[in-house]
C-alpha cells in the first residue's frame, strides 16, 4: 500500500475495501427506490381504486378505461410530444451553435459566455412570466407594434401565448435550455480539442464536413445526453404549459393536475393513471431516443 506525501504531510493510503459494494449502495438505493419507486407503486394502486372514500378499496380498471378511451388524452399526448420535441430540437440546434461560437478566442468572449449562462439561475416560472409580458397580445411587443402603427389592435398581433401551436411554451423552454445545452456541448468540445478538426481540414474537408464527420461523432454522446434531459423535462413539467398553454388541448401534466384537483373525488384515479402514463411514455421515448442515437457513445 502506497502513501502520498502532500505539503510535507504523509497521507496514508486508503485501506483495502472489505465492505461489499451492495452494502455501500444501500443508502442511495433506499432513497431512490423508496421515494421514487414507492411513489410510483402508490400511484398505481390509487389508479386502480374506484372507491373515493379513504380506507376503502374497490379494484377497478375504470379510471384507465376512461383515460385511454378519451380522445382528449391523446390530443394532450400529441401536444406534449410536440412541445418536448420542438423544444429539444431547437435547443440542440441553438445550443450547439452557441457552443461552437463560444469555443473560439475572440474579443469579448468572457462577456458573451457570461451573458449566455446568465439565465441558468432564473427559475422557469420567472422566465414564463417574462414571456407572458413580452409576447402576449396585450404584451410589450404588441404595444410597441401598436404604437408604431404596425397593428390596429391586440387581435392583430400573432397569438404566441395560449395558442394551439404552444409557441410561447416552446419559446420559453428554448430560452431556458439553450444555455444548458451550450454548456454541455462546450465542455465536450473543449474535451476533444481542435486538432482533430485541423487534421480533417488538412485532409481536404471543409469546415462543415469536418464538423459533421469528425467533431459531431465525438460530441454526440454528450449532446444526446443533454437533449434527453431537456426532452424528459419539457414532456413532464407542469408550470410552463399551465401558465402559457391553450385551454384545449392541455399538456399532459396540466391534464393530470386538473383531474387531481377536480371537486369530484372519483376523478383522482384518472389523475394517477395520467401521471403514470406520462412517466411510462416519457421513459419509453427517452429509451427509444437514446437507443436510436446510440447514447452509449462512439464505439
Amino acid at each position: 500500500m502506497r502513501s502520498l506525501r502532500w505539503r510535507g504531510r504523509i497521507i496514508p493510503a486508503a485501506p483495502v475495501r472489505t465492505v461489499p459494494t451492495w452494502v455501500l449502495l444501500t443508502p442511495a438505493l433506499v432513497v431512490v427506490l423508496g421515494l421514487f419507486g414507492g411513489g410510483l407503486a402508490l400511484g398505481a394502486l390509487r389508479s386502480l381504486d374506484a372507491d373515493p372514500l379513504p380506507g376503502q378499496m374497490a379494484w377497478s380498471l375504470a379510471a384507465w378505461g376512461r383515460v385511454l378511451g378519451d380522445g382528449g388524452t391523446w390530443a394532450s399526448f400529441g401536444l406534449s410530444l410536440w412541445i418536448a420535441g420542438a423544444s429539444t430540437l431547437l435547443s440542440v440546434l441553438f445550443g450547439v451553435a452557441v457552443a461552437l461560437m463560444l469555443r473560439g478566442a475572440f474579443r469579448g468572449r468572457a462577456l458573451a459566455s457570461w451573458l449566455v449562462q446568465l439565465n441558468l439561475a432564473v427559475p422557469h416560472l420567472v422566465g414564463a412570466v417574462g414571456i407572458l409580458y413580452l409576447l402576449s397580445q396585450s404584451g410589450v411587443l404588441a404595444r410597441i407594434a401598436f404604437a408604431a402603427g404596425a397593428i390596429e389592435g391586440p387581435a392583430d398581433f400573432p397569438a404566441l401565448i395560449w395558442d394551439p401551436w404552444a409557441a410561447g411554451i416552446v419559446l420559453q423552454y428554448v430560452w431556458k435550455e439553450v444555455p444548458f445545452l451550450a454548456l454541455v456541448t462546450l465542455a465536450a468540445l473543449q474535451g476533444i480539442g481542435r486538432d482533430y478538426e485541423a487534421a480533417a481540414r488538412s485532409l481536404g474537408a471543409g469546415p462543415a464536413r469536418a464538423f459533421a464527420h469528425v467533431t459531431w461523432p465525438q460530441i454526440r454522446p454528450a449532446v444526446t445526453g443533454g437533449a434527453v434531459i431537456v426532452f424528459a423535462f419539457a414532456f413532464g413539467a407542469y408550470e410552463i404549459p399551465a401558465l402559457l398553454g391553450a385551454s384545449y388541448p392541455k399538456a399532459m401534466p396540466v391534464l393530470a393536475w386538473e383531474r387531481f384537483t377536480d371537486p369530484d373525488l372519483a376523478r383522482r384515479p384518472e389523475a394517477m393513471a395520467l401521471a403514470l402514463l406520462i412517466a411510462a411514455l416519457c421513459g419509453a421515448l427517452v429509451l427509444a431516443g437514446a437507443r436510436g442515437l446510440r447514447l452509449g457513445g462512439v464505439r
Partner: protein
Amino acid sequence: MTGLRLEGLTARYGDHAAVAGLDLAVAPGERLALLGPSGCGKTTTLRMIAGLLAPAAGRVLMDGADVTRHPPERRQAVLVFQSGMLFPSMSVEQNVAFGLRMRGVPRAARRDRARAMLARVRLDGLADRRPADLSGGQAQRVALARALVLEPRLLLLDEPLSSLDAGLRDEMRELVLALQRESGVTTIMVTHDQAEAVAMADRIALMLDGRLRQVGPPEALWHRPADAQVARFFGGVNFWPGRGDGTRFDCALGPVPCAAEGPGLLTIRPEAVRLDAAGPGALPARETGRRFLGAVTRLRLVVGADGGEVIADSPAPPETITQVTLPRAALHLLPPP
C-alpha cells in the same frame, strides 16, 4: 513535385512575435527539417504552411502561386500530427480513406487505395481496427498512410518520431524515408531533436526565438555553424574568445595554430579533439575529469598557462593524457558574441 517559398512569414500571439519575418525556399522533392527548441515557432510555421493558422504578415507560395489566403482543404499540404489525431469514430481503413472520401472518390476505389496504402506501411491486417486499439507506433503509421494516400503536394510532419520509443523510432524513420523517396513528395518536418533532423533531412533550417538562424545541409550546420547558439544546439561545447592573425589564434589556450583571422570565437567539436598522437601543434594538457556517456567518454582538460578548458569526446581515451591536438581542418571561427 511542388516547391514552396515563404516570404516574410510572421505570426503573432498578442504582442509576442512567435515567428518573425521568415524567408525560406524549399525545392521540389526536398526533405527539409525545421529544427529548434520548443517554443521557437517551428510548429507555428508548419501550421501556417498547412493553412491552419493565418499569418499576421508575409506570403506562402506553392510553385510560385500565392496560397496565403487559401483554406487548408484547398492546399493539398497535409499535416501529420505528432499524436496521429486518428478519428476515433472511424476504423483504421476509414481513417486512411477519409481524404479520398472528401475528394469524392467512389467507395470501392477508395477502399482499394486505402488497403494498398495500409500494406505499404505494413498494417494490412489492421484495416478494421479502431484507433483506440492501436499502439503508438501503429497509430503514427496510420496517420502517415492517411496523408500519403492523397498524394499531397506537400507532406508536413510535426515531430514524427518524438512520441515513439527508441526501437520504433529507427523503424519509423526508415519507413518515412522510404515512402518519401518512393513518392518524391516535398516534405517539411518539424523536430526539436538535432539527431532526427540530421538523419532525415536533405537540409536543415534552424530556428531560434522565431527567427531562422541557419539553413543548409546537415554537415554544414554540424561542422560550420553560423554562431555560438547554433553550435550549442548541435552539441558544441568548446568556445574560446580571442583574435587570429591568419597563422595562429590567441586565446585562453595560448597560441593555437590555425588560419583564423580577426576577432571571434574559436570552436571545435568535442569528438574532433585528438588525444592520441603527439604531432605538430600539440598542446600540453592536464585531465581534470572524465565521464562515461555510452558511445563516448567525455573528458575535461586544462590546456595552456591561462587555464583554458578543452572538452573532448573519445570512444576509447588513453589512461593518461598529457597533450591534445586541435586539427586545423576541424577548427572553426565564429563571429564574436
